[in-house]
């Protein structure tokens, strides 16, 4: 049993990214540093490096894809992201991300909004969005 567990840890976990960060296809680049991703989703940076505005889309706090984004891609917990938004939004220093209800809606909003940034658990081959690799 223990050996079986180690097998999973070594061979399965490193590849098991449960959520993909996606952007509108017109956004330049293929990767994003973890710290920058945290700043974009935390609404602390509002422009892409080329100067175009970022539009962040999120799923509800308890959605499995949101929890996975926070823990696996941003290295924080959902409550911290929520606190960070609240501090900015109720002091007027930034706007809140736009919340969508489902992953299907996430894909369609990201596909049709210039500068859009979001995430889903699985991007299919024909989805009209681009994956951004967080490293």
């Amino acid at each position: 049993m223990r050996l079986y567990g180690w097998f999973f840890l070594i061979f399965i976990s490193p590849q098991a990214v449960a959520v993909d960060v996606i952007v509108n296809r017109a956004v330049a680049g293929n990767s994003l540093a973890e710290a920058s991703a945290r700043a974009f989703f935390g609404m602390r940076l509002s422009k892409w490096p080329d100067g175009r505005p970022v539009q962040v889309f999120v799923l509800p706090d308890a959605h499995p894809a949101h929890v996975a984004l926070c823990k696996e891609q941003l290295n924080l917990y959902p409550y911290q992201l929520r606190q960070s938004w609240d501090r900015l939004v109720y002091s007027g220093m930034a706007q809140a991300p736009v919340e969508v209800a489902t992953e299907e809606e996430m894909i369609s909003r990201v596909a049709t909004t210039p500068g859009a940034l979001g995430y889903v658990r699985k991007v299919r081959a024909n989805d009209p969005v681009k994956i951004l690799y967080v490293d």
Partner: protein
Amino acid sequence: MLLVAALSAAPVGAVELGRGVQAHGFFSQSLVYTSDNNVGGKSDDGLATDMRELGANLSWRPNADWLLSGQVLARWAGASDDGDPRLDYGFVDRSLLSDGDTSLGLRLGKIKNPYGFYNTTRDVAHTRPGIIMPQSVYMDRVRNFYLAAPGIAVYGNHVTKRSDISWSLGVIRPDGDDPELESLFLTQQDPGRFKGKNSWLGQVLTELDGSRWRLGLTLGEVNMQFRPGAGSAFGAGSSRLLPLVLSLERNTEKLSLTAEYSEVRNSGSGYGIPGLDDTNTLLAWYVQGTYRPAEHWRVYLRRGEIYVDKSDREGVRQTVVPPYAMFAKNWTLGVRRDINEWALSAEWHRVDGTLWVSPLDTPFRPVNQQKADWDMLLLQAAWYF
């Protein structure tokens, strides 16, 4: 009707009123029971209901470089705040630089002052670490003074692989027109008025390892002038406050530990009263542990202490106010349950000292009605969008 339709159609957490326009709002109502001393109305052996907050904000981002924000707030708090609506903040924000790692910008207008972790959203109940702010570092009796002020601020943010540093520096003119300022600085009401003079406040916040650690430093110089009125008991004095706040937080999935320590050096001159034309250092701190046993639940325990005069903590070297009105030490135990856009909380306080009890609610003159040892129970329902 339109508003109701807009609210019901909007995603949770915001109302989008058009491209780049957002609206948010909040409301809270508290019930207060105290064993002695009045807080938020007649709470002494009764249930006070005069503690309430109502606010709404609008923001507009016409393009990536500009942001316009404004918030209106009405606040009720016993005899010290009567619910008059006021502009809480209103400013223009211009982004000067944003290259993916670093940003720099300018804010002009009435801006929320950075002071510790929580000052900028202290009137928004669900963003506070408890039902009321930790009264040591964030005493409500000086809230208006530190809260927001007209001025100009530069701010920036810089991300590196392991850290996120944000900072701001503002030149402001604080709001001195507040009866609580007189009761605190002059220890009595007076026909004269305080007026804020040129001041500055700056803050640096660093988040390490994905916000598992948060560190903050707030520094400033806040100046005000006293303008005597007809029959004033005081001369045209001025006060200079030099605040320092150190903030530290450790976050894990279930537990957060927050500690803040502050010292405010206060120098007065020209009042013509020996006790006021003097320098003293106010000292305050609190430590809070917040445990999240399950999703939507939190339980917290806090110890906080505040002393008007660091060198006379028990208040025995002065005779102007009762000794125990020179400090407050308290334990706070609270629980909060979040249900959708509601935050429901209950909080119990065991307090030694009356420094953060407003004399407008519980006077110590002509007859001293304040009691040194007291308990307080608070219940609160807060709603936000």
